[in-house]
C-alpha cells in the first residue's frame, strides 16, 4: 500500500513569502504529526492531529506557523512571512491511532529553503 507522501519534495522561497506544505497520510490513519528537522539535528515536534482537530500544537514556534486537516486525512502546514531560520526539512508522520503500540510512519519530507 501507499505510504505517507509529502509535496513538494523541495521548496525554495524568498524571505517574507507564504508557503504551504502538504502531507497525505496512510489511508485510514487517524493521527497525523508534523516535525521540523534542521540541518544536523533530530526532528522536533510541531503539531499533532487526531482526526480533524489539533490535539497538541505546543511545538509550533510562533503564530506564523499554522496547520489544518479539514477532512481528517490530508494536512497542510502553512508558514507566513517566511524567515531564513525556517529553512529545514519538514517531516510528516501518521499512525493508525495515537500512542500505544501504534507506529508512526514517516514521509520523505519537504526541504524548505528560504533565501
Amino acid at each position, binding site marked *: 500500500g501507499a505510504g505517507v507522501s509529502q509535496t513538494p519534495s523541495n521548496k525554495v522561497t524568498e524571505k517574507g513569502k507564504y508557503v504551504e506544505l502538504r502531507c497525505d497520510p496512510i489511508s485510514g490513519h487517524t493521527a497525523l504529526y508534523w516535525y521540523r528537522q534542521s540541518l*544536523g*539535528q*533530530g*526532528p522536533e*515536534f510541531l503539531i*499533532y492531529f487526531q482526526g480533524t482537530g489539533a490535539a*497538541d500544537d505546543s511545538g509550533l514556534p510562533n503564530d506564523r506557523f499554522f496547520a489544518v486537516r479539514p477532512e481528517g486525512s490530508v494536512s497542510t502546514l502553512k508558514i507566513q512571512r517566511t524567515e531564513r531560520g525556517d529553512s529545514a526539512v519538514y517531516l510528516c508522520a501518521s499512525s493508525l491511532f495515537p500512542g500505544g503500540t501504534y507506529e508512526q510512519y514517516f514521509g*520523505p519530507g519537504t526541504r524548505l529553503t528560504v533565501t
Partner: protein
Amino acid sequence: AQTVTQSQPEMSVQEAETVTLSCTYDTSESDYYLFWYKQPPSRQMILVIRQEAYKQQNATENRFSVNFQKAAKSFSLKISDSQLGDAAMYFCAYRSEGKTSGSRLTFGEGTQLTVNP
C-alpha cells in the same frame, strides 16, 4: 520535559562486525516507549526497533537488539553483522504515554553510522 541525548555524533564499523550506538534520556515518567529510527539520505525515517518501558526483556529484531537499562535511563542499540545498507543516521526517540505529552516523539541529535567494506 523529556530530553534524549546521543553522545556519539559519528560512528564507524567494518562490514560484518558489531557496533553499539548509545542513547540516554531524562524523564520523570514511568510509562513510556523508546525507539531507534534509521534515516538514510532519502530522508525517510524508518523504525528499527521499539522498547516498552514496562518490559524488562530487551527487544530484538533480527540483527538489531537493544540494551535497555531503565534505572540508568540508558537505551543503546547493537547492530550485529553490520551490512553496507546499515549506513545511515540513527536517531533515538522517546514517547510518553502521559496525557500531557500526547503521542509526540522526542528525538536525540543523531549518530551518523558509516560501514566500511
